[in-house]
């Protein structure tokens, strides 16, 4: 503004002339409004007709002092003494000083006043200092559908700075225009609603269609435009939810892809390692409570902590027990199930059976609004990013590090690897620790979107195994594709089959899929496949 004005002297002189005028107006405005407030106030003490009129005037005036008065009126806590209106706290609404309450009576209202009151309250809240209240006000104005709201809404939109609220106000404005008497204004409303992508706007238009037979064509066009956008929005949101579920499955299954897929050890306690990770997050958070500046960063701190805790638990399990059962997968399955049971009960006794609350740091909260009305919860977005990051790190660890090389060597041929000087026992322990640590990291992510309870892991273990089997045992890329595929499939089926049947359907689909490709999507080829 400043810059442009400097380049245009003519405009600048106009500005300098108009500015004082504007300032005068600005100062005069509250005074005028105050007068309007004081003028309208005694009307509340009159008959129902007078009351309704006074309510309308108070609502139109936009004075902040009218809000408590109208609220009290709608709660039936407003009293009157002659023409003096008394607030619930006993003060004169006009002067703010204690009023004479002797002989005061409650102001009663009828339905006409009540409906005027709703619109007026909505309009007054449009100027509230809180964005949430303004949003709610726009919402209620949207629903009240009165052409009188057009002017206050236009004023509110001009002032509004929060995009979310502004969008809602524009919708409300369009809705108010829809019931205006002027056909041109009506068309404007229809056009604006047609650009929205909400069910409300659609319902509103359909309603208006019956009332305005002359505008059917325009309305139909607007509805069709909403529909196409809604379809896109739904598809996008389904995709996002699917990817979100998929990323959770990926996190939970990644560790399993290492221990089960690469090592061939079936670890039914894997879900409990996930649960341990979630509880580590909780413990780290509680430990950070004493240090206020650290608290927002407790979640990133939990990631290495959970990796360590679950990794150590995994090492202990592998060295202590699983090692003795190599080559006996069914026994390993049963044994680890028992270990999972013990871990679950131990955590239940230590932390209690009820859910523990893990807070989301402020930078993870909130909703990200994409164009087209697509809403994405930020913490789920973070989980997706985190899962891909973990996948990348895992791939790098296996492909690029010395440990990864040794691990692959042991998997391909244990005896040759041992002959080459690789300490296979140590590699086994490290691999298992790595897979378990990944489970712990999954727990950190799950603590953000699921309840942290002792049986957190049981809900994921079966799905994770399905992911590994579906994607192809021994293939991390298969795990990625399997997890995302199952996640999206689940969410696509969900809308018309319900969450439970979607799960059942996915299980059935997997079973049938295995018929065609018993070794999964990305099957290992050659010798390793028969190992």
């Amino acid at each position: 503004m400043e810059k442009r004005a400097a380049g245009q002297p003519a405009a600048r002189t106009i500005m300098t002339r108009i500015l004082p005028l504007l300032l005068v107006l600005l100062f005069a405005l509250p005074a005028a409004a105050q007068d309007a407030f004081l003028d309208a106030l005694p009307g509340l003490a009159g008959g129902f007709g007078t009351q309704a009129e006074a309510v309308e005037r108070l609502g139109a005036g936009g004075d902040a002092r009218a809000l408590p008065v109208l609220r009290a009126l709608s709660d039936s806590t407003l009293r009157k003494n002659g023409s003096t209106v008394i607030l619930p706290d006993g003060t004169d609404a006009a002067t703010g000083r204690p009023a004479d309450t002797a002989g005061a009576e409650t102001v009663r209202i009828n339905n006409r006043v009540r409906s005027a009151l709703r619109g007026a309250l909505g309009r007054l809240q449009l100027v509230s200092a809180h964005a949430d209240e303004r949003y709610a006000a726009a919402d209620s104005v949207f629903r009240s559908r009165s052409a009188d709201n057009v002017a206050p809404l236009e004023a509110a939109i001009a002032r509004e700075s929060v995009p979310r609220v502004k969008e809602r106000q524009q919708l409300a404005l369009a809705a108010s225009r829809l019931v205006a008497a002027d056909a041109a204004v009506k068309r404007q409303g229809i056009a604006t609603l047609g650009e929205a992508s909400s069910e409300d706007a659609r319902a509103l238009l359909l309603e208006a269609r019956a009332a305005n037979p002359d505008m059917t064509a325009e309305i139909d066009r607007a509805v069709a435009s909403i529909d196409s956008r809604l379809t896109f929005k739904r598809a996008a949101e389904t995709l996002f939810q699917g990817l979100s579920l998929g990323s959770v499955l990926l996190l939970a299954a990644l560790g399993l892809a290492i221990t089960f897929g690469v090592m061939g050890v079936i670890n039914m306690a894997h879900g409990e390692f996930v649960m341990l990770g979630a509880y580590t997050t909780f413990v780290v958070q509680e430990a950070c409570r004493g240090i206020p500046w650290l608290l927002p960063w407790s979640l990133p701190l939990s990631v290495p902590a959970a990796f360590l805790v679950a990794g150590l638990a995994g090492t202990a399990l592998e060295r202590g027990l699983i090692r003795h059962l190599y080559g006996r997968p069914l026994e390993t399955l049963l044994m680890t199930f028992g270990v999972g049971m013990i871990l679950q009960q131990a955590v239940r006794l230590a932390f209690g059976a009820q859910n523990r609350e893990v807070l989301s740091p402020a930078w993870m909260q909130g909703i990200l609004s994409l164009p087209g009305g697509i809403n994405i919860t930020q913490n789920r977005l973070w989980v997706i990013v985190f899962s891909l990051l973990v996948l990348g790190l895992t791939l790098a660890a296996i492909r690029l590090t010395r440990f990864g090389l040794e691990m692959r060597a042991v998997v391909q041929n244990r005896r040759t690897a041992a002959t080459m000087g690789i300490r296979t026992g140590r590699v086994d322990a490290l691999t298992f620790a790595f897979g378990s640590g990944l489970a712990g990291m999954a727990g950190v992510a799950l603590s953000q979107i699921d309840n942290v309870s002792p049986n957190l892991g049981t809900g994921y273990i079966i799905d994770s195994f399905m992911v590994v089997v579906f994607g192809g045992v021994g293939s991390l890329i298969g795990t990625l594709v399997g997890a995302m595929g199952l996640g999206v499939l689940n969410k696509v089926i969900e809308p018309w089959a319900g969450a439970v049947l979607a799960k059942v359907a996915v299980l059935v689909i997997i079973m049938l899929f295995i018929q065609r490709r018993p070794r999964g999507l990305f099957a290992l080829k050659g010798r390793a496949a028969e190992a």
Partner: protein
Amino acid sequence: MSATTAPAGTTRGIPARQILRGAILIAILLLALLPLLNHLPADSAFRVSDFTVAVTGKWICYAVLALAIDLAWGYAGILSLGHGAFFALGGYAMGMHLMRLIGPRGVYGHPVLPDFMVFLGYRELPWYWLGFDHFPYAILMAMVVPGLLAFVVGYLSFRSRITGVYFSIITQAMTYALMLAFFRNDMGFGGNNGFTDFKQLLGVPLNTQGARAGLFYAALALLAGSLVLCRHIVGTKLGRVLVAVRDAESRVRFLGYSVTAFKLTVFVLSAVLAGLAGALYVPLVGIINPGEFAPGNSIEAVIWVAVGGRGTLIGALLGAFSVNALKTWLTSVAPDLWLFVLGGLFVAVTVFLPRGLIGLFRSAAK
């Protein structure tokens, strides 16, 4: 897979096998006495409470389930983590019959529809409920439904050579999916409340000593019958092929046997036994709900077999009785400890006692 047919050891001239057989016979006779002792006057020292009869009856049903698992796992090497589902399906079939028998005695007093259907606004009986008012049909369904499910799952799995842990995971997913499905109200199986409040069976009111004793003997007969059947199977050529499949599946296939058919036969048979056990279990405990499908139940049943010693049949019975006796005692004395003990049993029996209690007994007898 260690060999399970250990040479029979001897103690002072009597073969260990005969000692075992005698012990089983005595145990079964003692069990058969329980309902009679229930009839003694209340102040008698030998009187057995109603609770004991019901609980023991429940264990007998569990023992049949364990036997079914042992037949598939111990002999054919098929570790199913979904046998609880077959058990529960059998239970639901019997539960449907019992619900139909309530008739107009329900809370809403509807002549045909069970209470939960009236509550959920059903107009008429769903088609799959028809016929369940006849007892033979219900018993038939308690065998057919689990058998059919086992056939489908088994056929699809064995045909594509899904073995070992993969099959275990598939069956676990199966029981998990069924649990989710049965929790739904619109399935027409009572949702998460399942069926309860049964009144009578075969014209006998359920909550009587006589009915309990009848069910108890029915369960005992089922157990004895299953044991004889399983013993017969493992003694025939079929049993030998099964053991061969367990120990070297590929070789059996290369020898020209249809491994799929053998595995499928034993798996379906095992599921039918589990279904029958479930059908007797429901009137004994008086309730069936989707919780019976929980994957944990199936795997717990597997551990009974492991504790007793798999591939022995007798071990399955021994395990089912001993673990459940321990559970009943411990959950009343120290409920918090039970899961530790159960988890510990899983670990101990797989790592330290791979041949179970029977193995322990046999090596002691040597």
